[in-house]
């Protein structure tokens, strides 16, 4: 045995593979510098106007922020990727503090979290920003901007700007490009423009791309009667839309395309995770323990919503005789703990700490429903290409839902997991072409036992 192999001066488990030294890089190009300067100008305009300087609150002031921020960032991303060879761009991700829970990552986490705390409980701190977007709010919805309009606006800008980054990062991958275009479209149109325009026409503010149980109030009796009694007839349609999407479209689309038709193509939470959250996707916990916690949590939230909804309806039918105020307090409790703390503060605030899909994975009741359908009644699966897997682990590492994709791939098994949102990144990063997202011809050939989906469900409950 050679001497040098026996002497071993590092512990591969803890030390030894931090960032290797790097030769000096080429300095930023002129275009990139200009882009960053333009972005910086936009941010400066925002800060100054938020502090009360003119022309805050006018269209000019609004555009002085929006245009430089949007085009500065978009052109930076464009130039940053333009001269690289199209392909997977994951160099240095584990060496950067922002993307590997370093100081910068924690800092961004604190800023995001602080923003959500302000948004939900101290909106007065956002007054400066709200004023800047006021002209847009007035023309779109006819009413002055509040914290929720400001939030919706920022959210939409983030999805669109980071969408540009996704287009560039994945310019070799049409699945990623089309999917990114889809989340941008639904965020901009369905979750921003339409709800605001509805308000302009004195209609209820309604998000066509959110349904019960993600928006549980759409099937609560209070919303129901408000919509049905709303003048103009549109309310009736919205009630109908909500019910059809929940009870007909959701199972049908999930049967044909899997959960992804919603989670990584339509949903706004998914939209932000797939764009602004993309740099953080590797931070999801892949352990079996995390999977166990996930199943308990996400299904508990679903049960909670179902119970609340049923109680509210019983209460409404009996005019409060049975449960009194109990069902109303459940509803409030849900709004606070799940809606605010979980989906907002932890869901987005913790992107740089726990990855981009914390809410989708551990909390979203819609994901739970779609997951059950995907697991037992869907044609969707990720297929494995024979024995070509060499267990490198890129797929598991970049799974934002924390699925240990490799565990299946290295055994040559199909991946059929309730939580899979079908983002397709596992297939993109695989260096051996092993993974493929597919809508099979039927659900029968997905894995042994799947020809009797209900039987499989009962079996899995028995073994739980």
């Amino acid at each position: 045995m050679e001497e040098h192999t026996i002497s071993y001066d590092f512990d591969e488990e803890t030390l030894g593979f931090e960032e290797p030294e790097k030769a000096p890089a080429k300095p930023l190009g002129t275009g990139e510098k200009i882009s960053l300067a333009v972005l910086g100008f936009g941010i400066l305009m925002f800060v100054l106007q938020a502090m009360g300087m003119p022309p805050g609150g006018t269209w000019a002031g609004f555009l002085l922020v929006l245009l430089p921020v949007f085009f500065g960032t978009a052109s930076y991303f464009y130039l940053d990727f333009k001269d690289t060879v199209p392909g997977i761009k994951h160099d240095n991700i584990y060496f950067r503090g922002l993307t590997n829970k370093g100081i910068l990552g924690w800092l961004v986490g604190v800023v995001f979290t602080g923003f959500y705390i302000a948004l939900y409980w101290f909106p007065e701190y956002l007054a400066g920003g709200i004023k800047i977007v006021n002209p847009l709010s007035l023309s779109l919805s006819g009413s002055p901007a509040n914290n929720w309009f400001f939030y919706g606006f920022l959210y939409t800008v983030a999805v669109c700007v980071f969408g540009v980054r996704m287009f560039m990062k994945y310019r070799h991958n049409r699945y990623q490009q089309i999917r990114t275009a889809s989340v941008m479209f639904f965020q901009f149109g369905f979750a921003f423009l339409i709800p605001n325009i509805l308000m302009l026409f004195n209609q209820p503010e309604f998000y066509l791309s959110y349904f019960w149980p993600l928006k549980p109030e759409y099937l609560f009796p209070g919303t129901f009667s408000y919509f049905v009694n709303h003048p103009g007839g549109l309310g009736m349609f919205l009630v109908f839309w909500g019910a059809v999407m929940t009870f007909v479209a959701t199972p049908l689309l999930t049967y044909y395309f899997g959960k992804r038709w919603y989670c990584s193509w339509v949903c706004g939470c998914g939209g932000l995770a797939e764009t602004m959250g993309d740099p953080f996707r590797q931070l999801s916990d892949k352990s079996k323990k995390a999977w166990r916690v996930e199943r308990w949590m996400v299904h508990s939230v679903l049960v909670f919503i179902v119970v609340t909804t049923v109680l509210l309806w019983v209460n409404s039918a009996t005019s409060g005789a049975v449960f009194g105020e109990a069902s109303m307090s459940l509803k409030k409790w849900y709004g606070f703990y799940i809606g605010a703390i979980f989906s907002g503060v932890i869901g987005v605030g913790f992107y740089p700490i726990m990855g981009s899909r914390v809410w989708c994975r551990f909390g979203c009741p819609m994901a739970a429903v779609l997951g059950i359908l995907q697991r037992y009644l869907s044609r969707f699966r990720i297929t494995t290409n024979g024995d070509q897997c060499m267990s490198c682990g890129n797929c598991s590492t970049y799974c934002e839902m924390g699925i240990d994709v490799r565990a299946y791939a290295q055994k040559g098994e199909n991946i059929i997991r309730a939580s899979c949102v079908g983002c397709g990144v596992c297939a993109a990063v695989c260096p051996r072409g092993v993974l493929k997202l597919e809508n099979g011809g039927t659900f029968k050939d997905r894995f042994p036992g799947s020809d009797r989906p209900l039987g499989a469900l009962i079996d899995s409950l028995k073994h739980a």
Partner: protein
Amino acid sequence: MRVAIIGNGVTGVAAALSIRRHQPDWEIVMISGESSFHYSRPALMYIFMGHMSYKDTKPYEDSFWQKNRIDLVRGWVTEIDAAGKKLIMHEKDPVAFDKLLIATGSKSNKFGWPGQDLGGVQGLYSLMDLRLLYENIKGARSAVIVGGGLIGIELAEMLHSRNIHVTFLVREKSYWTNVLPIEESQMINRVILEQGIDLRLLTELKEIVGNDSGKVRGVITNKEEFIECEIVGLTAGVSPNIALAKASGIGTGRGILVDWSFRTDRPDVFAAGDCAEIITEGEGRNLIQQVWYTGKNQGKVAGEVMAGQESVYEPGIWYNSAKFFDLEYQTYGMVGSVPVEGESNFYWEHPDHGRSIRIVTKDGAVCGINVMGLRYSHRVCESWVAEGRSLDYVLDHLGDANFDPEFYEKCEAEIIREIRKQAA
């Protein structure tokens, strides 16, 4: 019954799992000096480039081994006492066994180049090599890589990601052309150049030149050109790592000599994976296979045999895959680097040079397929080759093999048109 396995690479692990499947009660001890847990060797490059952390490269959670009652021993075996059935360990108590599997893998080739032991000269095979690279790149601005194979291009990609200028010496007239036909090989040449790597074809290493402190200063090529560099990557292939077996008196040739069931010349001692040389008995050259997949498959069979099953290794239809920077490659069946008498080659390449397919036929049956920049299904291609399908049949069903992601441009119509034209 106690089984010891030397080496926790894919072969050792595949063997351990297959023994556990057949023998729930046997004791299994897996020994490695390299790492406490099994990791994926092909993922070494991704640790270095910051795509993954070391722990992400471990295919099983740490608790997996205890759950499957596979005891992991960290340490180096210095001698195999095959008669006394024990392993002598470096600074550790000996390990007794009833049956032994040697799965010590490969080591990088060094061909006796002058200066090959200078500081800054290294191969890339193990965690130790990776660690060494961390040291060697300190202050380095440029590197020379010698040997145009798979590890060479991986090392080039790794160093390139750290902004180190890479000169890539390839002895042949084109990259990896001892394995790939010239067209595929040239596609990769283009990829290498596009990345800004200084690719030198038909260029050999003559001498590595050091400075006063015993470190690399540069190399001299067979064209008498001096190339300045601080790192030299020697990636001219690997050979079976047989030093331990040989020193312990177990029969070796180029590798550890075994039969088709991985038995060595000593009772209850087996060897499999990269380190093994299968005696083929009159079927031509002995068989040494040194890729991930064969290591895994050999380990599985060796484990079955050790667990008392009647099992014989059947290499099956060849397959492999690789990625050259961003260009993916898959191969199924036998595709030679140059057409052999009696074989016909049909080839299509996309005008953008990013995708290609080659179909090789012999006696009217398809015997090999290469795809570059396209993903094709292992099962489908394998069945075509195994069933000896005709070119017409394969072209009629070509779409069934496409494994590209959804919405990718489908080239099958174009491929079929071009290949039918060539076949006419």
